[in-house]
């Protein structure tokens, strides 16, 4: 086919370039700029090469916050994915219960992050919060501002409360798309409830679950606002996940170079994990 040359097409392409440049490329390049140089303000820069990268990669502080980050993400995935599927399985499939359940499930998702943090902070306060006070009244020595275990417990509980609904909604959509004939066919075969779940429901939900895991991985790996408001990263550095640590370094200590290097490394880790995960899932898909 012959293509006609029409330079007017640029009018349609350029706005996109400009938009992407301003909201993605230019800010990212600024970070790259800081990552390779040292500055003391006044627009004076000195070339540092890969020094900040080496420093970050070798720093124990980074290793510790990266470790905490992975631990947190794995724990919440491990709880939220099975819990979300389980809740979706028990939700009604038709009738008035459907909209009621869907609205109830969506509620936590509609609350802004900092509000979630503030809510749970007040809720969990050992002296006046309902959760904190009740736990103490029941004889548990609970204080999330003082004890590391309690801080983790509260942060994870908050995240499960806030985000399990997303997994529920996605799983529910996957379940609803399974035609009733599948269940009938299984009934005729005499398949057990467990067999129906593993042989029909899980394989049919695979795609939405892939998306659910990816979304929950990324969101939890980049979590900032909620733990910042709830614990502020404490006690000590016990709940200082990657982004909290990064902000401390960049704005608290004003170590712009190392902070920029750290955010690039952070960015590549997220990208890499998502890519590996996605490729593995899609390759499995191809084999079937």
């Amino acid at each position, binding site marked *: 086919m012959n293509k006609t040359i029409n330079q007017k097409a640029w009018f349609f392409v350029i706005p996109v370039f400009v938009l992407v440049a301003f909201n993605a490329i230019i800010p990212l390049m600024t970070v790259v700029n800081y990552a390779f140089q040292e500055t003391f303000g006044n627009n004076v820069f000195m070339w540092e090469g890969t020094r900040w990268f080496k420093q970050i990669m070798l720093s124990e502080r980074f290793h510790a916050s990266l470790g905490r980050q992975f631990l947190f993400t794995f724990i919440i995935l491990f709880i939220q994915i099975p819990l979300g599927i389980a809740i979706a399985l028990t939700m009604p499939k038709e009738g008035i219960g459907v909209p009621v359940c869907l609205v109830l499930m969506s509620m936590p998702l509609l609350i802004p992050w900092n509000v979630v943090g503030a809510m749970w902070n007040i809720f969990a306060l050992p002296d006046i919060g309902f959760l904190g006070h009740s736990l103490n009244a029941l004889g548990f020595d609970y204080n999330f501002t003082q004890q590391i275990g309690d801080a983790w417990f509260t942060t994870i509980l908050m995240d499960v409360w806030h985000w399990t609904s997303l997994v529920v909604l996605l799983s529910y959509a996957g379940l609803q798309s399974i035609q009733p004939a599948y269940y009938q066919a299984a009934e*005729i*075969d005499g*398949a057990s409830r467990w067999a129906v779940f593993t042989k029909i429901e899980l*394989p049919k939900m695979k795609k939405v679950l892939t998306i659910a895991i990816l979304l929950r991985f990324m969101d939890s790996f980049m979590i900032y606002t909620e733990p910042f408001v709830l614990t502020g990263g404490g006690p000590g550095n016990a709940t200082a996940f990657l982004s909290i640590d990064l902000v401390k370094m960049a704005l608290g200590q004003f170590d712009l170079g190392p902070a920029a290097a750290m955010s690039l490394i952070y960015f590549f880790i997220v990208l890499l994990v998502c890519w590996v995960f996605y490729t593995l899932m899609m390759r499995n898909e191809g084999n079937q």
Partner: protein
Amino acid sequence: MSLELKNVEKKIGLDTHIYTTDLKLEKNTINILLGPTLSGKTTLMQIMAGLDKPSMGEIWFNDKNVTGMKVQKRNVSMVYQQFINYPNFTVYENIASPLKITGVSSDETKQRVGKVAELLKLSGMLNKKPNELSGGQQQRTALARALVKDSDLILLDEPLANLDFKLREELREELPRLFEDRDCIVVYATTEPSEALLLGGNTATLQEGKVIQYGKTLDVYNKPNSLLSAQVFSDPPMNITKIKKVGDSCSFLDNSVNWKSKINIKDGEYKVGIRPHNITTYKEGNNSLEIKGKVLISELSGSESLIHFTKGDLSWVSLSNGIFQKNVGDEMNLYMNADEFIYFDENERLVTNG
């Protein structure tokens, strides 16, 4: 072996899905449930299988009351309009799945799966997963799953409806052979009269939850007990007009067409049903009536021509062999074979089929 529905009725809330039905299906027969969508075919099948309970009445199998018995205990298999297979199983595992649950030995499973796979031309793809197959092959797998079990009752709910034209034709031709020499009762639901004629056996015509007529397929086709049954068993739709008979002369009510008839019925007014293929662009039979019509649409289907036309206040459909292309609004002559008219009384019951 026989399956009997005794006074079966199905209501959901205030809606009646199946009106009181008595039906006896015999051993080694293919029974076609023919009716438009929402006529109750699927509901009736689910009641037969035991997937659904009737609100009233009983189901008897081999002179044993099986009403309310669980489907797993009934040795039935079912094929659906959608291609239902276990997504993570290979074709082999899918076909073998009903045997595995009943605990058939692995040697016997292998042999039986192999046999059914060959019958359905699936031998080359036993190691593939369903989503690597075409729609036709997926449905073949589902059919194989239903056949491998040696069920007493095989139910097929519009199994060809989701296939494209060519695959449908192909599989449709193989179907009668699949059920040969099988010790079972086959029930086959379809909306298409041509499928019923091709499969033969017995046909029950259904309309809005009522079984209108049940009998040998050709009998139901040739001697519909009512206008409704004739309409269900006609595609394209049957032409219906009113006629008057006085002595041996018959005429359309508007007197536009007159003919002599030796037909042995009382004088009076009748409704006649004329199948589209009995109105043609050429003369056919000894008793051919000429009518004038105005073309509404003319369409070709394979080597046949469908011409929709108006005559008087009514619109008609004719089906002729060969290619005839007409322009909209053309006046043309068409010929009706009066020997093939089906006569109904004012209550739309059959009087005679000519």
